[in-house]
């Protein structure tokens, strides 16, 4: 399959890893931002193939994992209303709120549906004019343009029964929050290729300068990731701190202008709470004033305001790259995908779930 097989070519991957081995002279900690990259690393066993000096830590780039409890409770409250058809990407359905989750709302009679595209939710709203269709708009800059398009489309059609519960988050402020933290260990980043496909990489250039870290825009296939790691290692070894692009087949410096224009029209930057990390200034999107009528939070006033506790949840340490999932005492015993204690064990992109599904033999083999 074109664009897949050549990036899973074992020989090229081994050659690149040999190149990393030749380039590396001391230990380095590199964080991949995106949950899709974490998944690919663990699924293909890449981290075990890299030389010992390279410690890959997994970043906060799983939108499901960082969606705050209060938002999930709000989604559940809206989805439970008899007049609402609640539409979401599949992953969110299993994430537990304070007392229940969307799958259980569905089994109790709530009209909860899964789509692959937010535009399907708009089409659904057209089909059922007597019902309120609410789309759960989550994700990073990657999913934001399609969600923005859905809002534009609904506005164009004059739909009064479509709204969106927006919980979008943005990557660069999260990277800055991690780098600004006094306990930061990360020395270089593999940034998320699909986020940069939309946004380009100009936002990352001041970060590289201010914090003196290399940032490599990286794809998701195994060869992409080891090439990204090689580029990061070369920068680290030579004392450079620049933004480089590994994912050239998809990303340009300016990103996707049309997508960025749509985002600028429909959304405004706002502060956001990140589960496991806390409040990060300027790290999210909300609907802009002209589209405020489509804001599900305004349309359905809910008093779901579950207090976000901030005790020593290991999920926070995992999301900040301080700990690996397998370093958690609850990992694989108290905490499993069937009985998750934290969101990174719930989502298929969560680091803990990736370790559980693909890495469980390690403790047994030690």
């Amino acid at each position, binding site marked *: 399959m074109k664009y897949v097989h050549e990036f899973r070519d074992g020989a090229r991957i081994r050659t690149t890893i040999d190149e990393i081995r030749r380039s590396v002279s001391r230990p380095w900690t590199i964080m991949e931002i995106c949950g899709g990259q974490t998944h690919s690393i663990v699924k293909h066993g890449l981290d075990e193939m890299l030389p010992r000096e390279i410690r890959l830590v997994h970043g906060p780039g799983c939108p499901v994992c960082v969606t705050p409890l209060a938002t999930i409770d709000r989604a559940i409250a809206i989805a439970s209303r008899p007049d609402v058809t609640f539409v979401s990407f599949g992953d969110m*359905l299993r994430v537990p709120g304070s007392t229940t989750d969307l799958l259980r709302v569905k089994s109790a009679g709530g009209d909860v549906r899964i789509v*692959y595209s937010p535009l399907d939710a708009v089409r659904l709203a057209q089909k059922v004019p007597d019902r309120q269709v609410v789309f759960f708009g989550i994700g990073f800059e990657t999913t934001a343009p399609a969600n923005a398009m859905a809002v534009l489309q609904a506005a164009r059609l004059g739909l009064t029964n479509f709204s969106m519960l927006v919980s979008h988050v943005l990557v660069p402020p999260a990277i800055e929050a991690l780098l600004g933290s006094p306990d930061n260990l990360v020395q270089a980043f593999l940034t998320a290729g699909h986020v940069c496909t939309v946004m380009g990489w100009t936002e990352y250039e001041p970060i590289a300068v201010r914090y003196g870290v290399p940032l490599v825009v990286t794809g998701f296939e195994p060869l992409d990731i080891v090439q990204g790691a090689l580029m990061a290692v070369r920068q680290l070894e030579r004392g450079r701190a620049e933004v480089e692009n590994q994912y050239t087949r998809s990303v340009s410096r300016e990103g996707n202008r049309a997508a960025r224009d749509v985002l600028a029209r429909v959304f405004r930057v706002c502060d956001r709470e990140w589960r496991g990390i806390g409040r990060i200034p300027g790290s999210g999107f909300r609907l802009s004033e002209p589209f405020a009528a489509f804001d599900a939070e305004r349309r359905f006033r809910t008093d779901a305001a579950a207090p976000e506790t901030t005790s*020593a949840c290991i999920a926070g340490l995992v999301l900040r790259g301080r700990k690996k999932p397998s370093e958690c005492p609850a990992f694989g015993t108290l905490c499993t995908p069937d009985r998750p204690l934290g969101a990174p064990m719930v989502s298929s992109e969560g680091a803990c779930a990736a370790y559980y599904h693909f890495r469980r033999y390690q403790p047994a083999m030690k």
Partner: protein
Amino acid sequence: MTNAVDLSCPLPLTDTARVLLGHGSGGRMSADLVRRVFLPRFTNAYLDRLDDQAVVDVGGQRLAFTTDSFVVKPLFFPGGDIGTLAVNGTVNDLAMSGARPLYLSAAFILEEGLPLDDLARIADSMRAACQAAGVLLVTGDTKVVDRGSGDQCFINTSGIGVVEHPWILSADRARPGDRVVLSGTIGDHGMAVMSRREGLEFETEIASDTAPLHGLVAAMLEATSEIHFLRDPTRGGLAATLNEVALASDVGIEIDETRIPVRPGVQAACELLGLDPLYVANEGKLVAVVAESAADTVLARMRRHPLGAEASIVGVVTETHPKMVVMATGVGGRRVVDLHPGEILPRIC
């Protein structure tokens, strides 16, 4: 050591008062449901094996007996329809005990409003599938429910077959050194149904692999007496079947990703929808666990059969990492192939 109650992330709801879709996914939730609700109430030597069929002794004759319900949506898909599945699925459950399938029953639960032409088309498919498999549909039942109380057409089939060899094929019979043989490409059925549902189109259409496998099984059993286990990897895919063997036999299984055949169209559809072919349903493939000494013989015999032409030895049973399936990845890494916990996938069988 962190105490579980100190973790701030919410404890999710492990127990549920209602049936969830995940309970029907063929993964861990399905197994939990059977263990919690049905096994304690009906426990007996046959049921407790949890095989896809029971082999019972009736007057000195070993008979295989099985039942299966079909709720696939859409009813018609490339390569088959709910009727073909309903016949082949039950024929295959019988065949995996090494039985010669003989007789089927069929029960239809129809939703008010189903076009009669659709029902006739389904019945035609069932007749053709029965003829192809050499079985007779000898008894049946029809019920109609109010519009909205069902989804067009559900079918249950049961089947009886005769076991004419003395061997026991079961998930608990895998031994270290045994080879894992797969009869062909994986993921075709599940992706045929899902691509149709999602409106995906590819250069070459993905068609369901639905087929009766008893002929292939008979050929394999003629070639050797050293087959320890057979299973058609339907819901939950190859991953679920291998995990079941590892668990039941208390062994490890090592598979090699590069030896598992996947059609390019299926691979592409999986990439698009974010699925792993290892977990996608098949309706015309089998997995055999075979003694090392007989593996090459069985493989050669399978490859001469039209339904085994792409057969491949994909793995080996090990003493290490018991109860766990580990895969050598195509790029040279290693990873666990887990049983999926209960996925949100559309109804595919």
